[in-house]
């Protein structure tokens, strides 16, 4: 766990090489087993400020247990360290499980512009996304942010964690080929003050 990269005015921060390639293979195999068992195709519009089919993703929740503990520990460690060094948000912990998300080119996987923090999700403070797929395995499917007049694109490097305040507008562009997998995590805390 090193490779923290941020600038005080960044829209998002990066932490490269959070897991080794061998560990990423294990996470992917574990996630694929879970999605094969109980994948949910999310294509919902849960918030007040959305319209239409904003999301097409296969997702599965990682149950916190002995088998997944090392994944939880690593990602939560990264989240805490990032928060200490960059954000200093008031956090109470992690009330939601890790989410394994799969975007398939074949079904036009995407997630339109949204924020993770809102009237129905007031407890999300810091959002994190772990890139699980090698960038050569898919096309499109970029995680993008907008906090100004230009759209910013997150790096695709396998093993990199991208973190951002949950109020930042972001999207995943349509996957045009192949498959992109990611782990998504949210830290929880009292409403932004």
């Amino acid at each position, binding site marked *: 766990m090193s490779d923290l990269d941020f600038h005080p005015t960044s829209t998002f921060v990066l932490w490269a090489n959070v897991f080794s390639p061998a560990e990423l293979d294990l996470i992917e195999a574990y996630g694929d087993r879970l999605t094969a068992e109980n994948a949910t195709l999310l294509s919902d519009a849960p918030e*007040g*400020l*959305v*319209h239409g089919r904003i999301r097409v993703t296969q997702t599965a929740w990682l149950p916190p247990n002995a088998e997944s503990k090392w994944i939880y520990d690593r990602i939560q460690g990264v989240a805490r360290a990032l928060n200490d060094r960059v954000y200093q948000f008031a956090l109470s912990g992690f009330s939601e499980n890790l989410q394994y998300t799969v975007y398939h080119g074949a079904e036009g996987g995407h997630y339109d*512009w949204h924020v993770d923090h809102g009237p129905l999700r007031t407890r999300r403070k810091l959002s994190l996304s772990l890139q699980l797929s090698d960038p050569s395995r898919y096309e499109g499917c970029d995680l993008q942010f907008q906090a100004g007049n230009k759209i910013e694109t997150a790096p695709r490097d396998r093993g990199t964690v991208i973190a951002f305040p949950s109020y930042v507008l972001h999207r995943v562009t349509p996957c045009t080929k192949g498959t992109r997998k990611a782990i998504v995590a949210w830290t929880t805390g009292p409403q932004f*003050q």
Partner: protein
Amino acid sequence: MSKSPALKVFGPLLTWQNVFTPKELDAIEALGDALMPMRAALASRKDSADHIRVTRVAWMERNPDTAWLYARLEELVMRMNQDHFHFELFGLAEAFQYTVYDGQEGGHYDWHVDLGGADVEPRKISLSLQLTDPARYEGCDLVLRAGNVPHVAERARGTLIAFPSYVLHRVTPIESGIRKSLVIWVSGPEFR
């Protein structure tokens, strides 16, 4: 204050109508016009040229002429913060910004957030008071985005729009006429 201002909540945005009487709005406009707004410089990006922002602004400082306006807005901000935002605030630390978008010069302000840079206190709540009758200009909409559908702010004169300063927003190009508004930022410690 006119009786029973209507407060509407839409996601992170508050819209408050008829907060000031037409006569009070005239007085605010006269105060701003007397300051002879000059072409604005961006608060945090002085090197950025007109492609991001074209506006004339004047800073409306706290003084005996504006004391009533500061008092009124302080009261409104306190109420909306108690009822809705619950943010930690210092108060109205920055002067109000009187902004003029002119159809003759393609006034606009591209997508941005207000959080602030190195040289200003953190901004927590942003407010915009519509000063011009919507019949007097075209375009120049205040548009906010917190989801995949942009929200176009109410244009009626006297409407006060409030939102957390992290919300992405812009003012679309003005096509004709002149639009005036008063912009207010409420300062506080960094969001946490």
